[in-house]
């Protein structure tokens, strides 16, 4: 029933294989042991993340967030079977796509993240590498291995800060794009303003944050 094909990508955590399941394209996400970590740490982390990712994908799907559908788990091989989202990684789009197109994408990302946070789901690694944009310019969130189910404002604010920092690292339009992201975010998440305030607090803990760099 499942046909495994070629390697789609080798990420930091897992190898992603492309395959098919009842004629639908799927991906197989196989978490490999890491030689640099102690086996005890490695084992716990891989199992934790496999479970977290599966649990969160199901939950997020239930509340109607745009996340790929989880088809199955192979615990022995630390592998997830996931619906394939066809499209481009946001990182690849950000410096090539026209700004108007990006603007609507960023607002949509805000809507999605707001929806997750409203339901106490955090992504944990909300970078421009973990968002896939399909042909209709609709963003999908992927890779929930560091996600958590939590009411803690700190964890939600971490998502915003991670997103902001990676955005800042790669795009000169980061201020405008992040503003649009927030616009969407506040729309679906009423307490979003508080999360944003908390994000600034986390940001101020770090060293060498120039005054002009602090967000208003």
């Amino acid at each position, binding site marked *: 029933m499942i046909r495994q094909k070629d390697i789609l990508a080798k990420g930091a955590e897992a190898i992603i294989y492309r395959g098919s399941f009842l004629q639908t394209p799927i991906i197989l996400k196989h978490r490999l042991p890491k030689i*640099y970590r102690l086996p005890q740490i490695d084992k716990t982390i891989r199992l934790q993340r496999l479970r977290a990712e599966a649990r969160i994908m199901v939950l997020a799907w239930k509340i109607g967030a745009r996340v790929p559908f989880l088809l199955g788990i192979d615990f022995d091989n630390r592998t997830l079977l996931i619906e394939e989202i066809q499209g481009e990684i946001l990182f690849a789009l950000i410096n090539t796509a026209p700004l108007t197109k990006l603007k609507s994408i960023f607002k949509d990302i805000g809507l999605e993240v707001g929806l997750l946070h409203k339901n106490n789901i955090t992504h944990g690694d909300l970078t421009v590498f973990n968002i896939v944009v399909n042909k209709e310019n609709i963003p999908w969130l992927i890779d929930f291995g560091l996600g958590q189910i939590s009411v803690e404002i700190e964890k939600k604010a971490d998502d915003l800060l991670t997103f902001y920092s*990676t955005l800042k690292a790669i795009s000169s339009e980061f201020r405008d794009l992040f503003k649009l992201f927030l616009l969407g975010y506040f729309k679906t998440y009423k307490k979003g303003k508080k999360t944003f305030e908390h994000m600034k607090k986390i940001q101020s803990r770090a060293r*060498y944050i120039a005054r002009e*760099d602090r967000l208003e």
Partner: protein
Amino acid sequence: MVYVGTQNSKSNFLDSEMITNEPVILGFEGTAHTAGIAVVKGNKIIINKSATYFPALGGIHPRDASDFLAKHFPKLLEQILDELPFNIEKIDAIAFSRGPGLGPCLRITATIARAISLLIKKPLIGVNHCIAHVELGRMVTPARDPVVLYVSGGNTQLITFLNRKYRILGETLDVAIGNALDSLGRKLGLPHPGGPHIEQKAKGGQKLLPLPYAIKGMSFSFSGVITAAQKLISKYNVSDICYSFQEYTYAALAEATERALSCTKKSSLLLTGGVAANMRLQEMMQGVAAEQSVKFFVVPKSLAGDNGAMIALAGINMYRAKNFIDVKNSHVIPRWRTDQVEVNWIL
């Protein structure tokens, strides 16, 4: 009570090497605990001297550190001038650490650099300390366009060159790894700096104690790990705590680094900064490089910590790009972030 550790190195400089057209730079490093002066020509370090301040109690006090720099820079400079194998006129420019760092220390360093620049009428180059650690790696190892893990007492950053700037892909959200090691060291009653002592103690560790694995995307945080480790002190032996602390914090660094490599698709990894001297961290980074099939480079141990040579070497690249500043505009920048620097010397 302050005592001094000094480091000297001088290479055999041949007169024939003076004939080449490579620029000669005099570099001053003084951002926190180290007064360093070096003379380099091209990527060859001619003289590199430094003196490091070790607080007898607690951490670095900014005023004590700046007093230390003010006392040691003139002595070091005298030695440098004595040993200089050519006339001072041959120096093409003066480079100094302009930031980031402790304000009082930066001002001492800048004052000396400005004075020399005016005295010998050679241009002044303001170098970003963090970028100097990266440039050092690019000059003394074969790494050209790497993902850089810069680990030191004051900074922990994942840096890479993208869109005409050095970008911070991930960084510590609170304290730096070196700072965390110092802090844990103090709590365990080990001398300053904590890193080397913790590394030694960790070799005898056998039991892995539970600590947080603090990774947030490509960023990391260590303050919570220190608190958790502190709570173990009364119950477990020092070696096991050191061992567990290293394993957990370095594994988080390693994973973030692997993410950065996987995302940027760069073909080499460079480890730099004072904590780069740690063998366990080097071993883990080698593992990361192997996982992502990239080349791994680490700066030599003698150049891992703060030193004048890194400022002078960065100065070489900046000199070639005519990246000079006027003395009257050469104010120090204590909070100068890596990604604020206009990098005009890499195409």
